[in-house]
């Protein structure tokens, strides 16, 4: 209420203002009350996010099989991983998934967002349709795509092919990428649409008056102004890609070259009970993602 007061009101308030020590005391009390309200959330965050993360860092330096006391091994888990073919293969599978899924998904989302960023009849419904797969759980989507990708499924029937999509080292990773593109496009589409709607219309109109065609307006007005959103999208795409787990579990169980890094961590931790080694993978991925994000931000900032 105090913020909306008029100038005379503020003047009255200023005149009626209590001495400075009392005001600061009031502020301290206000901050304390604020902190009190935030405390439950902070405690939960510390207990379920910060503490487990620190424990993972700690465990990565131990050999721990859940039943015996952890044994300090220093950096052995890390040195083992650098020579482990299965770990390197899963890193490759994750990298493939990120590039082949999220490259096309982001581009497609941008193109669709540009197309849907108009006031035409039914555009809201079309946007909703694109967003529907995002709101559907990955497991449900994977089950549907498992049917589509069967040897006698919809995809082979449509393409008139006989491709073993889910049971071949050549095709399985592409099959998962196809399903993932379908699922993920809507997510980036919504973000791009939000970015496009924040671009002032008068800039487009001024460029048009200057004789810029639609392609030049796209290149010199729209895309440069979308850059901040594009940075967010690219960072999120890489993180989402490396976090993938469910489609690989449901569609192939990690077979045929689709054991992505998170699936490798899960199997190492809970099927093999090698908690230390699994934690080391998690730490490596944390560092890798941090570096990739940093490089992305630097590169995009430099080109801006």
């Amino acid at each position, binding site marked *: 209420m105090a913020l909306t007061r008029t100038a005379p009101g503020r003047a009255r308030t200023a005149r009626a203002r209590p001495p400075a020590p009392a005001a600061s005391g009031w502020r301290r009390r206000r901050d304390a009350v604020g902190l009190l309200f935030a405390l439950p959330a902070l405690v939960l965050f510390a207990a379920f996010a910060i503490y487990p993360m620190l424990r993972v860092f700690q465990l990565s330096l131990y050999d721990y*099989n*859940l*039943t*015996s006391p952890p044994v300090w091994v220093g950096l052995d888990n890390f040195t*083992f991983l650098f020579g*482990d*073919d*299965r770990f390197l293969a899963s890193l490759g599978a994750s990298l493939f998934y990120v590039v082949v899924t999220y490259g096309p998904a982001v581009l497609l989302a941008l193109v669709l967002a540009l197309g849907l960023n108009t006031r035409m009849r039914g555009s809201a419904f079309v946007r909703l349709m694109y967003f529907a797969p995002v709101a559907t759980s990955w497991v449900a989507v994977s089950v549907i795509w498992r049917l589509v990708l*069967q*040897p*006698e499924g919809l995809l082979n029937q449509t393409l008139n092919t006989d491709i*073993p999509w889910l*049971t*071949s*080292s*050549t095709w399985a990773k592409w099959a998962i990428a196809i399903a993932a593109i379908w699922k993920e496009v809507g997510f980036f589409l919504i973000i791009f649409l939000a970015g496009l709607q924040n671009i002032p219309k008068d800039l487009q109109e001024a460029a048009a008056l200057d004789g810029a065609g639609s392609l030049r307006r796209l290149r010199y007005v729209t895309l440069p102004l979308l850059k901040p959103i594009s940075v967010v999208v690219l960072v999120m795409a890489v993180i989402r890609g490396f976090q993938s787990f469910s489609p690989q579990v449901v569609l192939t*169980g990690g*077979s*045929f070259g689709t054991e992505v890094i998170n699936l490798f961590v899960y*199997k190492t931790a*809970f*099927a*093999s*009970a*090698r908690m230390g080694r699994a934690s080391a993978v998690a730490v490596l991925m944390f560092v890798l993602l941090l570096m990739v994000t940093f490089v992305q931000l630097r590169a995009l900032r430099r080109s801006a």
Partner: protein
Amino acid sequence: MSARPRARTVLIPALALLAVAAGCGSDDGGGSTGEGDQIELTYWTHTHPPMTELNEQLIAEYEEANPNVKITYETIPNNDFGTKMLTSLSNGSGPDIINMDDSALRGEYIPKDLLAPIDPAAFGAGSVEELEGRYVDGTLDGAKGDDSTLYGVPSEFNATAFAINTQHFADAGLDPASPPATWDDVAEYGQQLVAAGHEGFNFVYLHSGWYTQQLQTLLNETGGSILTEDGTGSALTEPESVEALQIWYDLIREDQVGDADTASREATSPFEDFASGRRSMTMIYPWAVEQIAIDNPETFENLAVVPLPQVDPANPSGRWYGYYFAVNKASEQQEEAWKFIEYMTSQHERWLSDVSFVQPLKDWEQSPAAADIPFIDVWSQAYQQGKFDEVGPHWSEVQDAIKAAVERSIFDGQPPAESLEEASESVEQSVTS
């Protein structure tokens, strides 16, 4: 609204809630005092619908006979069963009673000291030896540690045989009375069955445990093995081991008696392709017969169980595996858990008649329930020549390596020697690190 009424609107429901919560606490405490011998047991199994149904019946009967006992029964999806059980037992939150396969028991649970040694008194036996004496020799080895301590009794004990669809045989002009005796016969018959419009034969492609157990069946016949004798290295590149995968490879890729790409991958119904009438021949275990009967009575009518085809029929070999009732070492109700298990095993006739589970007590073949089991002679013979699967350190990784090797050969066409070479490196690394 003044401050006081507002405070009242907040405080009164809050106090009421507290009172209810306090009341609940008081009731609980009173209940447990008044019913001091109330016992709650938890029991987990994998998913197999006929077994689940019988488990529920037996639990209801046990609870009725023991009103102070409440048993919470959970079935875990097969693909997650091993992982969930191992994790929960390891962190002390697992069930009181488990029903688990011998590979997991010998490979993980017993070496990790997660199970309670058996309590012979619960079975009315004076000693473990007396209890062991009731079972067919060797059949309890699946639940024994290296020091021969016994940790469980069988809920089901399986030997391996072969199933054929007699109608399909007739369609292909084959005589069901002369089933395939060797894998070469399977190839020959399979091609005739394919020509008659059926899938002649195939293996089952589910999780890594299934891949390993089927390869193990072939390894037992060829004389190969997964690990070296001392268990410290891989024996997968030995000629006998390569021969086992070569049999699989030849049947599917060379002789084309089945299509691995179109095989069902439904873990709760592993024999769906045979039960649905699509496949003509399959390896089979006793428990699968009941499931086929439920899934498709028509196929069941045409089912014949015959001896497992052999590499060397003059020197037959087979594979055993079992599931065992065992008790969580962290359970605070071990005595009651063993009593419940005693009840479950005392119903061995019903396990056999209702779900085709063999609990290998001595002379089980002579029991009234066994008399009604179709093809009892074949099963009885199969139980004479089996051996348990190999296990070793970090067995789930070894199984994953074997699954990957089979997939490279069967689905991608890599020659067995090459894919086993790759698998061998992984296995070496798993058992030594």
